[in-house]
């Protein structure tokens, strides 16, 4: 039940930002960027793991707890109405941001991982039978592999994997061949977290829909970097995490077409997801609450709404254009370093440069860069099959956000040179 009568504070995303993108202005919005690490300015290049949060998001979290903390969807009192209103406003913000047809298609979850697990559990147990197939790609994050593996094991279904080429691009012809009458779902990452590849999801969805196969898109690495419109894509499900999108940890979104969400059984049982309970029978609540058992991460949802506001204000198209330029600059600069090889050289990339240095292990690289104040990720990036595909145990990954600068790329290059000096 959504209270009415309070003023909605939904801010519409600006279609065109008012001023040109100014990274130095943007940096002012992120208090953590003033941090010194070992006496050096923090150079935060681990945005694919989690992004930093702008003041507006921090304020929204604080405001909720300081001024309007109450449970949602149950109270008849003033505070609860206020909290419910803000929480539901956040849902509408996300709906508009993703271009979804209706707010009830937006399910708040813990993150992209839970969103995928929800679909695997709920859609999977209803529609996937023995002998059926789930199709993924060879560049998926573990969170878009393991839930399907569990489902396939339980149902006696088969997990099929579409291969990628040496640049880290999906081989569409092979993908096409794997679509068949037994395929019950395609689950594909929009942007690869380990390689930065942007998949042609529009085309993938069309190909799958030609066989009447629904498609889940894991958008965890896409939403912060490029404009997503779920109706234009025509995806059946779209998952993303708040915390990689300048929002709080512990909150994320599953978008699903009403058609599927109506048919799918609940994911978890509990409060909020019911409309009537007796010991004999429970009637489930309507969408989206059917999939939101228990008290949700209210502050997180509101914080995510603030992140949507922030990104809309700065302008996602501006961010995308700026980051594209920054990524190209970074790729040019790091590829000049002798012995450095970039892993993932797809034509369409976003946000990520993964690399290996001849004779040097990513862990040693990460430790030395850390002492220079540079935060990168060293490891398999929760994508061990990708590492295996490229024959490396691990890579070093620099991943970018809208507040990173060319100067920080230069610091990374100098840091890598320092690594080579120390380990020579």
């Amino acid at each position: 039940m959504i209270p009415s009568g309070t003023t909605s504070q939904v801010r519409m995303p600006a279609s065109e930002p008012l001023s040109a993108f100014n990274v130095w202005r943007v940096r002012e919005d992120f208090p953590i960027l003033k941090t010194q690490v070992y006496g050096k300015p923090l150079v935060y290049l681990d945005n694919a793991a989690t992004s930093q949060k702008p003041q507006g998001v921090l304020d929204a979290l604080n405001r909720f707890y300081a001024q309007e903390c109450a449970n949602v969807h149950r109270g008849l009192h003033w505070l609860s109405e206020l909290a419910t209103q803000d929480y539901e406003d956040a849902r509408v913000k996300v709906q508009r941001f993703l271009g979804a047809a209706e707010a009830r298609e937006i399910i708040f979850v813990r993150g992209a991982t839970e969103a995928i697990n929800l679909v695997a559990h709920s859609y999977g147990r209803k529609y996937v039978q023995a002998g059926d197939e789930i199709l993924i790609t060879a560049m998926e994050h573990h969170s878009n592999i393991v839930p399907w593996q569990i489902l396939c094991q339980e149902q006696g279904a088969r997990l099929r994997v579409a291969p990628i080429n040496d640049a880290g691009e999906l081989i569409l012809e092979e993908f096409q061949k794997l679509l068949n009458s037994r395929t019950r779902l395609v689950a594909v990452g929009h942007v690869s977290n380990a390689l930065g590849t942007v998949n042609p999801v529009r085309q993938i969805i069309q190909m799958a829909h030609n066989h009447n196969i629904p498609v889940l898109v894991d958008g965890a690495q896409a939403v912060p970097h490029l404009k997503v419109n779920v109706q234009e894509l025509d995806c059946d499900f779209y998952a993303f995490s708040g915390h990689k999108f300048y929002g709080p940890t512990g909150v994320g979104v599953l978008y699903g077409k009403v058609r599927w969400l109506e048919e799918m059984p609940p994911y978890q049982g509990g409060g909020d997801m019911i409309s009537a309970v007796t010991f004999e029978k429970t009637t489930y609540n309507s969408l989206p609450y059917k999939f939101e058992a228990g008290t949700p991460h209210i502050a997180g949802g509101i914080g995510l709404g603030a992140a949507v506001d922030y990104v809309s204000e700065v302008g996602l198209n501006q961010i995308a254009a700026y980051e594209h330029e920054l990524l190209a600059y970074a790729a040019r600069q790091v590829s000049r370093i002798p012995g450095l090889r970039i892993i993932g050289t797809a034509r369409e990339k976003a946000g990520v440069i993964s690399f290996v240095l001849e004779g040097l292990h990513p862990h040693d690289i990460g430790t030395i860069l850390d002492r220079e104040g540079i935060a990168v990720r060293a490891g398999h990036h929760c994508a061990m099959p990708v590492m295996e595909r490229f024959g490396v145990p691990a890579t070093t990954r620099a991943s970018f956000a809208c507040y990173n600068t060319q100067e920080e790329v230069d610091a990374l290059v100098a840091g890598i040179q320092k690594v080579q000096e120390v380990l020579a």
Partner: protein
Amino acid sequence: MPELRELYQELILDHGKRPRNFGKLEGANCQANGYNPLCGDKITVYVNVDDNIIQDLRFEGVGCAISTASASLMTEKCKGKSLQEAETLFHLFHELLTGEVGEESAAELGKLSVFSGVKEFPVRVKCATLPWHTFRSALQGIGEVVIKE
């Protein structure tokens, strides 16, 4: 920088790049696989024990400079030692990395003292101890050890 130099000393870099006793030991009567899922380091330690003495000891795998050097220096140190002596070294090495080692123990560790700088880098302690855990598992007849962060 001083901490980095302390961590990446010449001896560690040398053993990291040119590990000794590297490769499979044919006819080993104990062996174990060690794995650190966080960083992807993988190691296999092969041991030949006879008459309570470690007759031969080799390793293979992929890892960072710290774990490779640790494995290399471990094989040098432990070859010819009794099982009891190896167990003592395992504990001393652990103490070295957690910073509670006396002068006498340091003398016993010899070249292994080069790893004392690792204690300034807590996340790297497991890199240095993975080979030792794997070695110990091999001696105890445990085929596989997984280090969890």
